């Protein structure tokens, strides 16, 4: 949609009649209109980033007042040598790979289903959108209780069907604890991927498939050789958005496990929050925040490159 901005120079239409001074006035008004939003974003987003940069070079612990001082790169050094940080980074990486992969596959299936015309289509679309709209923390609470050993559904179903796994304390296993975490994350986020893919699917003209059919391609072949390549841009956008938010997962972990058992479900966002807001070690927390910001901006950079390559984007 944004593409249309560039295709026709609408903003210049009045030029011929009104002359240069009118154009300049419109331009000035234009800047004035954009400015408040930019200032607001700079204040709430850019300023904290700079603040982190400065703070990360200082020793600043709330419970030790009067001892703040410049320490150079020492916070970063402590971070690099902390095995817990690397462990949390690893957990985060594993979580990103598994959750994004599963959500992508499920989202693709969802999109393909909803793209077909059938009776209950409206119901499906609405029912998948509700989980998306539920706050992440609430989704985590809901799935935590779903896996509760007493009042949860999972235990009930497994026992009723005499399946193995009944009486499992999911949150006491460093591996199994990830199951509810990932299911909750999927429940909440798959719809988003599905919507993006669906919008992509709807731009593919039906005729392509018909001619493929005439050529004798099976629907499976058509999916691989036509749908997937044509969807490539939508897929990339969806994957990057999800990768970023999965990398920063916090609410789900905080609510479901608090990083436990042990530290087996601790992720980098939790690590950062804990250092900043519980240990109240502001200098160290700022250093972690800087590292996380760099990781996120790397992803953003990839994203912008992909957009650039796409035809029609505002340039």
């Amino acid at each position, binding site marked *: 949609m*944004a593409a249309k*901005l560039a295709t026709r120079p*609408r*903003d210049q239409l009045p030029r011929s009649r009104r002359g240069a001074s009118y154009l300049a*006035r*419109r*331009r000035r008004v*234009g*800047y004035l209109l*954009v400015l*408040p*939003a930019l200032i*607001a*974003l700079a204040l*709430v987003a850019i300023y904290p980033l700079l*603040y982190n940069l400065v*703070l990360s070079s200082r020793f600043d612990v709330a419970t030790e007042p009067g001892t703040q001082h410049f320490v150079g790169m020492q916070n970063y050094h402590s971070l690099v040598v902390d095995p817990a940080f690397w462990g949390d980074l690893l957990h985060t990486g594993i979580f990103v790979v598994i959750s994004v992969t599963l959500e992508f596959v499920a989202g693709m*299936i*969802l999109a393909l*289903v909803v793209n*077909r015309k059938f009776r*209950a289509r409206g119901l499906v*679309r*609405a029912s*998948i*959108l*509700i989980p998306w*709209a539920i*706050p*992440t923390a*609430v989704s985590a*609470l*809901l*799935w935590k*209780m*779903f896996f509760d050993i*007493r*009042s949860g*559904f999972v235990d*009930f179903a497994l026992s009723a069907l005499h399946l193995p796994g009944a009486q499992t304390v999911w949150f006491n296993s460093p591996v199994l604890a990830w199951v509810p975490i990932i299911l909750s994350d999927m*429940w909440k986020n798959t719809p988003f991927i599905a*919507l*993006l893919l669906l919008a*992509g699917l709807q731009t593919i003209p039906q005729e392509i498939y018909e001619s493929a059919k005439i050529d004798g391609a099976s629907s499976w072949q058509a999916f691989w050789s036509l749908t997937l390549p044509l969807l490539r841009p939508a897929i990339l*956008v969806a994957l990057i958005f999800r990768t970023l938010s999965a990398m*920063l997962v*916090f609410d789900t972990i*905080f*609510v479901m496990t608090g990083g436990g058992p042990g530290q087996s479900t601790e992720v980098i966002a939790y690590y*950062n929050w804990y250092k*900043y*807001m519980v240990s109240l070690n502001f200098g160290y927390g700022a250093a972690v*925040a*800087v590292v996380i*910001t760099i990781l*996120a901006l790397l*992803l*953003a950079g990839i994203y*912008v490159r992909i957009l650039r390559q796409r035809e029609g984007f505002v*340039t």
Partner: protein
Amino acid sequence: MRTWFGRTGFYVLVAVIILYSLFPFYWVFKSSMESSVALNQPTTGMLPVQWTFVHYEAIFAVENFLRPLLNSMLVAGLTTIVSVILGSMAAYGLARMPIKGKALILGFVLLVSFFPQIAMVGPLYLVFRHLHWLNTYQSLVIPYLILALPITTWILTAFFGQIPVDIEEAAMVDGASIRQTILKVFAPIALPGIFTAAILGFLLSWNDFLFALSFIQSPNMDTVPLALVNFRNAYYVHYGQIYAGVVVASLPIALIVLFLQQRIESGLTAGSVKG
């Protein structure tokens, strides 16, 4: 035979999707109707052992759950208003005015939505502490702009770009000022798009947990997600009340989604920069 099989398979898939999406809600509803004693016993069936409303009574009579509901509405509502005003202005400038560096500006707005929320928490906490703003509404409304303003700006820029320019042009030919053109001619046409942006801004602010967890300090300032996580006293976690609270908090969201599904979908796809 093959098509019959395929169609059955397809509807089984549809059923699985609907179940996965909605069944957890049923379970939380069922648990919210269960007595505390039953909640601590192994589950015996798909229906409550004994239907009870005690948890619903408790969250309003004992816990004053109305307060977090109002807090959340106020905070998300204010954020939405501010975002929509700032976002519409910026979007109009970007979509209609001959300014330079549009790609740069949109790129910057997009970049902000990539900034990790967790990295903002610490500095904002320290700034708010300095201003004595912790535990106030503005300590949430201001950070929520990071969540809501980028997406509103993007959506509105996309929507405004789609509105034909002819009508405004005609108005200007008739001698209307820029301001009159915007308010009298453009705004009414743009309203649906603005509404869409508002819904999304509202939902995104409503969903926040991290900022509220970090900046809110007393129970009477809790937002809904925070209040649900905090349904406990020093020793006791009130599971029944959490379930009842989840049901109460989910209802308005479910209604919003059911009634405004198409707007939300179009806004989401526009906001994530569909080409």
